């Protein structure tokens, strides 16, 4: 291998991380397969580094004869009746009993090789049942063990080497395990030399076509012993390297990572802050939270208060007859619910659309499984959103409640003018009473540019008061608008905070999880 391969522990660690991220988020079967592989890897690594080699093949291919030839004793009884091998037989080379390993494999027929060849120490050879007979239980046993063993030797014979059953169900799906697989063409003694070469070439062609070009093909004859030394040499090489289990697990991990890669989209572009809500979203949330209603209530209330302070004293008490629009909304206490009305159908529709757009933007280039997860996330969010928005609006600080100084000053001036007018009025009343009592001339009536002073005082006071009220009105309105703008800014900031915490952040989290998942899958599949 020219490329340095990552260690199995790294691969499995990456796979574990991917499974952790996907747990609870992705509901796809590949995650279950990854979890099963991790469990199998854990169990296998604890059972030592013996090499488990399985002889698999079709009915009548000569597996049992080959098995006996390799073991050197008649363990499996080959027969003429078909199907023959019903249960799996195991032969163990080496002293340290691979009993726990065979327990894990659920193989009950065990044979310890006498006088074992030291080069094969640590080999566990299995003779599997056939996989294509009428007995279904044989096939199930083969399927189970094919997943668990370290090295697979497929025994083919000239009659059946092109069977669809072998190629479609076992060889082609193992395309990623070319290094773990070995193909043996048995019964070559039945063919003469040119036929044998032609047969081998044809088999090679079939295997190459299925992506198994790296799998060696060994011609043997279990009956005459031809080719057996080569086969034994291959086994010795594998056993002494003590890497068979690792190789198999690495190949499995690569396969599982490849399957999981189907659920990986492109990673996020760097530089964009995903946790920040867009302006459209904030606007829609503000509309749903009733921010316009609150802002207009703020403005109206400020205007009312200003009118009360600077208005004509004779009339401004009428303002008290109407309720303060701001106080009706019961704002100011974050714990209590406001008296704002529920968002109407339109505002709710706008909210849903805005959340949907935010979700589509985050999930634009993600695969379907992750888009489903995004949808689930926003569904949970939408239920809580109304409450959170209400709280945000309730807790907003809408600015000081005090009346500005100039309004108070104007109010004082208004009272003074009113007093002046009152003085003039009283004077005129006194003059009128005195006139009625025929006591003219008791009180002096000074004149100011031709007009009597009391009249001037009365008229001037009233007029000045009215003028002052008129002049103050636009100033009051401007002040109210300013207050409203400030309130809107503060409310929008709080709503934006809610948008970030409730909508943008969960979406960004999901996106980040997807990126982590993809990185882990890529690491596991290298």
């Amino acid at each position: 291998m020219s490329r340095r391969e990552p260690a199995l522990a790294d691969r499995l660690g990456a796979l574990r991380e991917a499974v952790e991220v996907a747990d609870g988020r992705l509901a796809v079967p590949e995650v279950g397969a990854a979890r099963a592989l991790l469990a199998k890897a854990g169990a296998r690594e604890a059972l030592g580094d013996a090499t488990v080699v399985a002889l698999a093949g079709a009915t009548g291919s000569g597996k049992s004869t080959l098995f006996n030839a390799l073991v050197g004793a008649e363990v499996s009884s080959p027969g003429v009746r078909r199907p023959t091998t019903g249960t799996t037989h195991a032969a163990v080379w080496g002293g340290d009993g691979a009993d726990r390993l065979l327990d894990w494999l659920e193989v009950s027929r065990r044979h310890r090789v006498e006088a074992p060849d030291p080069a094969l120490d640590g080999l566990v050879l299995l003779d599997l049942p056939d996989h294509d007979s009428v007995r279904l239980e044989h096939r199930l046993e083969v399927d189970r063990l094919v997943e668990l063993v370290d090295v697979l030797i497929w025994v083919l014979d000239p009659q059946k080497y092109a069977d669809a059953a072998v190629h479609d169900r076992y060889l082609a799906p193992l395309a990623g395990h070319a290094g773990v697989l070995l193909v043996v063409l048995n019964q070559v003694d039945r063919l003469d030399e040119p036929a044998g070469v032609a047969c081998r070439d044809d088999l090679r062609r079939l295997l190459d076509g299925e992506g198994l070009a790296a799998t060696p093909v060994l011609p043997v004859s279990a009956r005459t012993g031809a080719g057996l030394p080569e086969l034994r040499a291959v086994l010795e090489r594998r056993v002494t390297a003590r890497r068979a289990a690792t190789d198999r697990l690495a190949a499995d991990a690569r396969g599982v990572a490849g399957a999981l890669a189907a659920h990986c989209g492109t990673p996020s572009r760097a530089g964009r802050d995903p946790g920040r809500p867009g302006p459209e979203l904030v606007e829609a949330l503000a509309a749903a939270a009733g921010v316009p209603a609150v802002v207009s209530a703020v403005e109206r209330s400020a205007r009312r208060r200003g009118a009360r302070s600077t208005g004509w004293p004779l009339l401004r008490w009428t303002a008290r007859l109407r309720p303060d629009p701001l106080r009706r909304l019961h704002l100011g206490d974050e714990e209590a619910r406001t008296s704002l009305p529920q968002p109407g159908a339109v505002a709710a529709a706008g909210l849903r659309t805005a959340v949907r757009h935010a979700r589509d933007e985050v999930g634009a280039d993600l695969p379907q499984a992750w888009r489903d997860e995004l949808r689930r996330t926003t569904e949970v969010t939408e239920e809580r959103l109304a409450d959170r928005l209400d709280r945000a609006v309730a807790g907003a600080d809408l600015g000081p409640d005090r009346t500005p100084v100039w309004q108070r000053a104007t109010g004082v001036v208004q009272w003074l003018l009113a007093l002046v007018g009152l003085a003039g009025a009283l004077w005129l009343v006194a003059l009128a009473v005195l006139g009625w009592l025929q006591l003219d001339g008791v009180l002096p009536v000074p004149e100011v540019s031709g007009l009597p002073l009391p009249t001037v005082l009365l008229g001037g006071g009233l007029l000045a008061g009215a003028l002052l009220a008129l002049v103050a009105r636009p100033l009051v309105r401007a002040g109210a608008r300013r207050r409203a703008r400030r309130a809107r800014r503060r409310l929008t900031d709080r709503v934006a905070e809610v948008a970030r915490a409730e909508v943008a952040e969960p979406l960004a989290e999901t996106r980040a999880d997807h990126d982590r998942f993809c990185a882990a899958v890529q690491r596991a599949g290298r």
Partner: protein
Amino acid sequence: MTAAAPTVPDALETLRDRVAELSFGLAVPGRADAAREARAVVDQVDDYLLPRLRDLDAPLLAVVGGSTGAGKSTLVNSLLHADVTRAGVLRPTTRAPVLVCAPADRAAFAGDRVLPHLARTTGAPGGPDDGHGALRLVAHDALPAGLALLDAPDVDSVVTANRDLAAQLLAAADLWIFVTTAARYADAVPWDLLHTAVQRGTAVAVVLDRVPPEARDEVADDLAGMLRRAGLSAARLFVVAERPLDGGLLPAEEIAPLRAWLLGLAADQEQRDAVVRQTLAGALDSLSDRVTGLLAAEEQQHAAARTLQEAADAAYARARQEVDDAVAGGALLRGEVLARWQEFVGTGEWMRGLQASVGRLRDRIGSAMTGRRTSPEQVQASLGSSVADLLQAAADSAAERTATSWRSLPGGTALLAGRERDLEAASPDFPDAAVDEVRDWQGEVLELVRSEGAGKRARARWLSWGVNGAGAVVMVAVFASTGGLTGGEVAVAGGTTAVGQRLLEAVLGDAAVRSLAARARADLRERAGRLLDTERARFADLVTAAAPAPDGITRLRAAADGLATARRSR
């Protein structure tokens, strides 16, 4: 036997046409098998049943079939004592099937009578890549008249086309000569075929090839037992021992029993008829079971299509209900729309026609005055955009709901494949369509008001108000008139709407206002329904394209009944 009853061949042809019309477009589990079975039924009717029914005296067709490497070609060559088909060591060997017949029967097999869809080639054998759609025809003297042998491809070879062709040829046979070996006689795939033969009552003969001479009896007994247990006790079993080939052919003494039996069969007319009748009757009998299976599969398709349609209908009905509720319940009044309306009613605009002095009026009307002048057009526009937003949100959520429910229904995922992103939201031209529709509705309401108010032109207030204002009032009345303004409203002065409505009532008459509001509401509902139906059609069209024809099941059942009647009346 009435003259009007159809003959069996005609009824069979009708049945074949009906089966060929079946479609399995929805990806429910089991659909691939059902499609294959339908094709197999059509093929068998074309290849075997119709030709045989039309000509009961035609020569017997014996198909030699079996697994890869069983020795079929060697067997055929040995029977004829000539090198007719190519045997070899590479698998699969037989690429193009070879039909060997007597020269006298050549005409019977050269035409389209049997296996009409396979071309016939004669002359020199072709290369290894012989076309699969062809049948090699060889006339040989060694074969007596009345019997033809067909060397079929392997039933379990790696090449899928070979497997399908082998199944097709076996279905076209009067007699199966099934070849297996001592190594393969317990294989699963060939036994599946033998079970099919049992179900159809086909005449079968089994040849056990390549038996080691020492194990001959044991293996033969085992196989005989298996055949008995499978219900093939009537099948003849021939055993051929493994001996060195004699010039590429099996030794004559091994082949002798089989050859004798075949020649006897060819010579004896009665025996041939018995075989033909047995296979024919069995095939016709089995047709009813197979057609029942196909009917069930077609029912499944119908059910799946129905479920998918219902899911789409339910989602869009819910969307329509959402829009209805929002329109009828006065909910659209809340928020911005009503705030604007409030300003509109409270402004001097309205009062200007009544009084002159602005200041005194302001004080009298009180806090309902905000001083901002809103023209009637502004109110209308905000109402319109609200309805369009509502429609957009309803269409989006209905599409998403449908797509999600389809993903969990059988066949739904396949229908959505490649189109998910488009179908999960409303179609891209929906917003414009909604806006257009709402604007049309607003125009409709204006028309209503105009036609109603035409007779009351004398009323000065209404004129100065402008038609637009009255239309806006009606629209707001539409939303408010069902009593949606309950005591729960706080920030909304519902009374201003009542003021507007009272005014309109004064102008146009009480009953007229109510009927106007009702008509406007109904019109809006209808338009919303139309828009949502167009959206729903995207999903409905997908299902209709993949679903089978609605009357396919009844027609197939009628055809099957017709066949049964024809057979009974024969």
